[in-house]
């Protein structure tokens, strides 16, 4: 596709890229982390649902594949550009106005901890219109409300095309409440992020 100027301008003006995914999104997120140029000049936050106590190698896999340095978030870490931050399992991750992370162990939302909504909503309070947020495949409704809040704050919001998603519920929930500025297929998302 030819990217319209509006979307690529807004992407280029963002300070932070927020990626939210659940069931069926791992391969896409992994691919994105690989193709992002190391001099992106933005911070990247990956909020992905996974089981607690599941001693996964997700962080290692991401770190090995990525061109940028990859870290699993610790509480009060400062947010730096050209770094990929992986939201830890069994915590919610919030973004503070001083561009640092704050963790939270409170109740799961949509049976999920991490909650994508919580990260997205707090990002809207800290970055206003300076985010690009993308919601990928998933089997529940997490992320939709957060994406709407980002959209209202003026950030660029994208939902993966439900036909293109392994589990369409999550992006569909965002589309249903008009939270997405754009509905794109994975290939189109890759093209945008590489541009």
């Amino acid at each position, binding site marked *: 596709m030819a990217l319209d100027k509006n979307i690529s301008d807004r992407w280029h003006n963002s300070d932070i890229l927020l990626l939210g995914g659940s069931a069926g999104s791992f391969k896409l997120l992994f691919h994105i982390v690989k193709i992002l140029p190391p001099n992106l000049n933005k911070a990247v936050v990956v909020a992905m649902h996974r089981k607690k*106590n599941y001693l996964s190698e997700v962080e290692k896999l991401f770190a090995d594949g990525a061109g940028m340095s990859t870290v699993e978030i*610790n*509480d009060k870490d400062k947010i730096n550009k050209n770094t990929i931050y992986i939201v830890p399992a069994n915590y919610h991750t919030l973004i503070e*106005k001083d561009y640092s992370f704050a963790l939270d162990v409170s109740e799961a939302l949509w049976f999920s901890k991490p909650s994508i909504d919580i990260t997205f909503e707090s990002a*809207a*309070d800290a970055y206003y219109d300076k985010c690009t947020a993308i919601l990928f495949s998933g089997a529940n409704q997490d992320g939709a409300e957060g994406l709407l809040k980002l959209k209202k704050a003026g950030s660029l919001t994208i939902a993966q095309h439900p036909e293109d998603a392994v589990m369409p519920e999550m992006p569909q929930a965002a589309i249903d409440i008009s939270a997405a500025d754009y509905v794109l297929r994975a290939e189109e998302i890759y093209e945008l992020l590489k541009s």
Partner: protein
Amino acid sequence: MAGELIMDTTTQGLTTEQISELIDLVKKVHGFDFSDYSKASLKRRLTRVMMIKKLTFYDLKHKLVNDPLFFQIFLEEITVNVTEMFRDPLFYRAVNTLVLPYLSTYQHIKIWSAGCSSGEEVYSLAILLNQAGFTEKSFIYGTDVNTIVLKEARKGIYSFRSIKTYAENYQLAGLSGSLTDYFTTLYDAAAIHSGLKVNTLFSVHNLISDTIFNEFQLISCRNVFIYFETRLQEKILELFYKSLCPHGFLVLGSKETIRSDFFKKKFKVINQKENIYQKIGS
């Protein structure tokens, strides 16, 4: 900031000014200081309490000033009381191998679980001590700001649903037998054996305003610092440092670290991943 004004008119959320107003009010009326709490979490909790109790910002202010019973309920909703027995099983493995052998050399082992909520961590530690044969010579103090959760902690009764999760954690911590060996079954819940409660005490303590009350060999403060800004963390680190015996241990949550350069020099890292520290000096 212009962006902020736009946000505030297009969403139902509390404004930064409204949050400051609530912080000031609670400080004045109840002497409880939320000023150095992590703001993003605090905003979520305040919004949540307004939703649950169906209060507007003005209702909330009114109740905080005029309803004497409301503050405890407010405090219970604002503070996060989510906890588990053997949360982060690998942490308990590390305590078992790195801390307990050291503690065994003391004649009396005093432990402080700061921010103990409904007591799950206190009883997890009590089980570890029991397995090591230290129950007789140990004492665990559980403290929290919230009197409602402390009542739960003293009961030591947990739902089957919770126990199921705790039992999985217990297995992952690599401990022998089963967690249910330490519980007596009730109808839809289970009670911790009274033998494990004997050497425990739960009481109110506010990390922000209260002071030293004993000397400890181990202080556990897990997933409390995440709600505090670093300046407040440093203040509480000083309280912990002073409350520890020489070579005493401090353990923080798995995602929490000592940020203060001053206190980095005052504690030796025993396990980086699980945030186990040992006091240097006296």
